[in-house]
């Protein structure tokens, strides 16, 4: 007996979900299977027979110091970029929630960078922050070479973080502001009657009630910073200077398409996938316990 409000028919649901299943089979599961196979074979880039090599690809990878370095860079970028984005969005959302004269305008225009997110933001911002004529070029008149993302790896990483933050604030700001505005005015009034000032209410009222939205933002930003890194690196630094922005997502692409090392590249994909799944699970295990869903 079907549950209430559900339709009968054995073939309908299969037919309806078939387009989706077909697409993910073709462009997701099949490539994953091929990638799995490649990581245990030595694949020739221009065809020819593949040779089974067991775990040799993994061995080769674990001896490659650049692999560890790239994985470390990915992790550092994920941490810094998402922390900065969520923090800055939170401060902006709290400010915009105060019904100031600027709030309405801010709510409108803070969404605009969304249109330019990713690679086009990378192109525009690498021009804006170029060492010769960019907005930070005055730093170089103080001390030559103080700001040079083209030659200095540290500056290049700062630039990546700024570009990431610029494109991602819109979404986080919208989510956090919606959460803040859902807190009833009467809570604020009650807290104020009890003598809680604005700072106190921020820490003891708004912050705890906003944990679901903050958690959502952290999860989104972790995943996005992992993915979007490619767009920003390709459009801004190409992994340079001297590998200082060569993150794992970018290394996989370069090894596979520019170095024709299909086996090495898919072995890294496999490890990256495991890492990604681990991070997602860890996020839920560590953070969600602190989230307060009840209002």
């Amino acid at each position, binding site marked *: 007996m079907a*549950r*209430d*409000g*559900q*339709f*009968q*028919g054995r073939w*309908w*649901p*299969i037919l*309806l979900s078939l*387009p*989706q*299943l077909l*697409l993910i089979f073709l*462009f*997701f599961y*099949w*490539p*994953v299977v*091929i990638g799995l196979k490649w990581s245990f074979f030595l694949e020739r880039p221009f065809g020819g027979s593949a040779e089974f090599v067991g775990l040799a690809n993994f061995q080769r990878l674990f001896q490659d110091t650049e692999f560890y370095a790239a994985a470390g860079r990915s992790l550092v970028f994920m941490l810094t970029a998402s922390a900065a984005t969520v923090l800055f969005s939170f401060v902006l959302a709290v*400010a*915009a929630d*105060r019904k100031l004269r600027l709030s309405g305008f*801010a709510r409108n*225009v803070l*969404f*605009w960078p969304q*249109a*330019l*997110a990713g690679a*086009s933001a990378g*192109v*525009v911002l*690498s021009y804006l922050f170029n060492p010769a*004529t960019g907005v930070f070029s005055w730093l170089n008149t103080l001390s030559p070479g103080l700001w040079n993302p083209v030659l200095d790896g540290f500056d290049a990483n700062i630039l990546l973080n700024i570009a990431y933050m*610029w494109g991602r604030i819109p979404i986080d700001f*919208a*989510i956090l502001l*919606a959460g803040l505005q859902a807190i009833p005015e009467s809570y*604020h*009034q009650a807290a104020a009657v009890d003598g809680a000032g*604005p700072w106190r209410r921020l820490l003891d009222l708004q912050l705890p009630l906003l944990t679901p*939205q903050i958690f*959502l933002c952290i999860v989104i930003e972790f995943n996005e910073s992992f*993915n979007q890194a*490619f*767009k920003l690196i*390709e459009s*801004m630094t*190409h992994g340079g200077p001297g590998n200082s922005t060569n993150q794992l*997502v970018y290394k*996989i*692409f370069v090894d*596979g*398409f520019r170095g024709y090392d299909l086996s090495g*590249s898919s072995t890294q*994909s496999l490890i990256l996938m495991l890492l*990604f*799944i681990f991070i997602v699970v860890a996020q839920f295990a560590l953070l969600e316990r602190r989230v307060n869903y009840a209002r």
Partner: protein
Amino acid sequence: MIETTRSIDRAATIVLAIGILFALGPFYLVVTTATSTFATVVQGMPLRPGTALFANLHHVLFQTDIPQQVINSMIIAVLVTSGKAIVSVLSAFAIVYFDLKGKTVIFGMILATMMMPIEVRIVSTYAVASNVFTPFQDLIDITGVNDLIEMLTGMRLSLEVNLLNTYVGMALPLIATATGTFLFRQFFQSIPRELSQAARMDGAGPVRFLIDILLPLSKAPLGALTVIMFESAWNQLIWPLMIATDPRMEPAVVGLTEFQTAFNSGQSPEYQYMMAAALLVIIPPLIVIALLQRLIVRGLVIGEK
């Protein structure tokens, strides 16, 4: 406000002003640079708009592939957006409104695709789209899946090298994601069960219910999702970068990054042209955002439930 806290309000205003400056500054400098001459741009970043907009636009429109690439982006973004919307509404409908044994498995299989973005599996996905299709071709020919594809899209997939340099090849793998299915499942589950019960009692079949009742109710999330999908399709980089080898097939964002690549390889940096091109690339998604901004915020609130 509850109490008069002028100093805090002033601080909040300053914070907002900084945020607005950070958000709008790049747009402003794109405009000023796109309207300036090379002579001005070389000296330093122009802070005031110049008068060379038409000269710069003329160069971009007639000397580069950007106009064609903007059209490509439009086609790809529309294909991806409509494809995703249709495919995910259908699968979410099947999952929520039918009593099917294996539906948790189906949903799990769809959801698992979120675990591995295209950036990570790019090399083998590329292989699938180019030539490894041959063993696969037989499979779908024998099982008749190809006939279904022919019925749906009006053409037979001949799965050889053909997916390279085609709009379909650029769009299809991007349609194959779970986000839409996930959001629509959430939304459909929040709709009272009484609606479908009443529809069934009145003798409506599933298709009738979907078209006449469910879709009109789904306008808000559908709108929000459309915007988000359009923006993300417009800003795709890695897949089109691989699949389009002909500059005239590339989407505009790829064309834009090639300006940067050319500068890096020693060409004199004619930023005024690059920014004029950026202007053309920004405008379509900016219009979409400006028109449908309210929907996005509403859709996000729904999606976060």
